[in-house]
């Protein structure tokens, strides 16, 4: 490496260290200094366990819905051309442009008890806002683009040669999809799913607005952390943050590892 490259490298590493590595090590250190007892204690609180379970279900729901519809949308965008396609492509990134808080308010305005659609549901005694359905909608909104954005380029590069080959070899549409198409785009899907999981687990702004943060009912893990912090329960907040961050890290690192090992 030349001298100029070395200076560049040091600068970049410094930037990464200050922004990412140091802060992360801070949390680990905090939990460590309190011993692992704070972790154990946290996991004995029913409120905390419920919060983690709620986050789990929200994440699962987001992954299921957005993976299926996101993959379908990717196929439509790559394989068909139709009027309004550019409009559809433009919409994919919109959730990135909308602040999570604003997203939360959008859903309250629309689905709240006095909202456009919400008033109808309210009349049927179905609660959307300050309840699970609203929180799921908000999480779906913020995680909307990930699968589409990862699957579209993979699908575009992959082309249709292999599918045509499968067809001439006598495979049905269904066999072609499961045996040829899906294995070819699975890495894009997995990556999109991983990002969806990470975002769903960590979502705060949209959820705090939509949920109302009712303890034991609509409190997710991130809301729990915020709540504990506001109550000056630093140790508890750090322990919960550790758990949450660890889950996300493990998923992300596992995926990176699988990626580096894959053959195809």
């Amino acid at each position: 490496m030349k001298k100029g490259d070395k200076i560049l490298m040091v600068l970049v590493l410094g930037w990464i260290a200050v922004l990412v590595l140091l802060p992360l090590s801070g949390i680990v250190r905090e939990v460590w200094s309190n011993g692992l007892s704070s972790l154990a204690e946290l996991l004995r609180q029913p409120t905390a366990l419920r919060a983690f379970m709620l986050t789990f279900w929200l994440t699962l729901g987001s992954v299921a819905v957005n993976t299926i519809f996101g993959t379908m949308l990717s196929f439509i965008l790559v394989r068909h051309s139709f009027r309004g396609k550019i409009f559809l492509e433009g919409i994919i990134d919109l959730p990135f442009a909308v602040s999570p808080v604003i997203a939360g308010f959008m859903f309250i305005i629309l689905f709240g008890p006095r909202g456009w659609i919400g008033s109808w549901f309210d009349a049927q005694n179905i609660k959307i806002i300050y309840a699970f359905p609203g929180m799921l909608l908000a999480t779906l909104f913020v995680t909307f683009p990930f699968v589409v954005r990862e699957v579209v380029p993979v699908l575009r590069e992959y082309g249709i040669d292999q599918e045509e080959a499968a067809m001439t070899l006598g495979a049905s549409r269904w066999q072609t999809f499961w045996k040829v198409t899906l294995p070819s785009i699975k890495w894009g899907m997995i990556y999109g799913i991983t990002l969806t999981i990470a975002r769903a687990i960590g979502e705060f702004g949209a959820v705090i607005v939509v949920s109302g943060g009712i303890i034991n009912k609509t409190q997710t893990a991130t809301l729990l952390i915020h709540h504990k912090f506001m109550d000056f329960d630093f140790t508890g907040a750090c322990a919960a943050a550790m758990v949450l961050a660890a889950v996300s890290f493990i998923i992300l690192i596992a995926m990176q590892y699988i990626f580096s090992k894959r053959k195809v």
Partner: protein
Amino acid sequence: MGISIQNVSKRFGDFIAVDGVSFEVQTGELVALLGPSGCGKSTLLRVIAGLETPDAGAVIFNGVNMNAMSARQRRVGFVFQHYALFKHMTAEQNIAFALNVQKRGKKEIAERVGHLIDLVKMRGYAGHYPSQLSGGQRQRVALARALAAEPAMLLLDEPFSALDLKVRESLVGWLRNMHDKLNVTSIFVTHDQNEAMEISDKIIVINKGRVEQIGAARDVYEEPSNKFVASFIGNINIIDAHLEGEAIFVHGTQAKLHRPAGYDAPSGDIVLLVRPEDIGLQHVAEGPHAIPAVVTGIRYKGSVTEVDLQLTDFSLTALEFSKYIWTVGEKVFVNFKKYNVFAVGDSHHAIRRQLEQLGYIE
């Protein structure tokens, strides 16, 4: 299986890819669809396979109209230009795909796949993924995969165009041998006239979506039906001349040639098309019609030598099989051992222009 293509047309938007093409392929024949890039030959092959739907015309296999049949139902073997191997499967799994899809017995599949791997000489590479194989090996796997379900017909879309020269030469010979062994009706698409001539029983020359000529390699080379075929297949000298009764006067020379048998157009301006190997060179004039010329360039090509000649008004290229005879600057005498005659017309210029656009003529 015999194939009959009847008046097939296909357009994409404003672009007419295939324009009323008809031809027949007999059972067991190996036929080449030959033409420049973008002439519609690949589209035609895809129409036959059922990968494209024709706008008009019929594709008939053994007397049965296939128009309503999907690619899956037609059961043809198709070999793609860029292999289209399943990247997540090994060579073996690729070859077994068609059999697995048909839910054949495990033992039968293993036997047939083993047989095919031997046929394409890939023993030892069965467990390799496509990314671990060379281009030639990939195309052999693709061929084995296409043959796995014992299709009655094999369609190959520029199967060798992505390969190096020497690999291509060896695979072309190998494909011909394999065809002779299996005797499956085959159509292959190519833009390489050498490949087409070397391998096929019959060549169908296509240009701008239309059939220009159908015939054996020797027919299209020696008796081209028009100037496009003459220029596209092999090298050719195009010489301006004038036909008057039975005599042909070559512009800018004293040469007088005979009207060829079978050419019965009226007198007028014509062009002579002469193959480089049909130009005879002598040290001394043989007869009164030998044309004097000067050697301006010699290109040694191993088994043959190309000689560039400058005449008074135009230049020629001759192909010599004997070595060491000519030197640059030498004066020689030229005669035409064989020539084709075509009337001058707009189409002559149009074809020349088209070939220029394709970059074939500077």
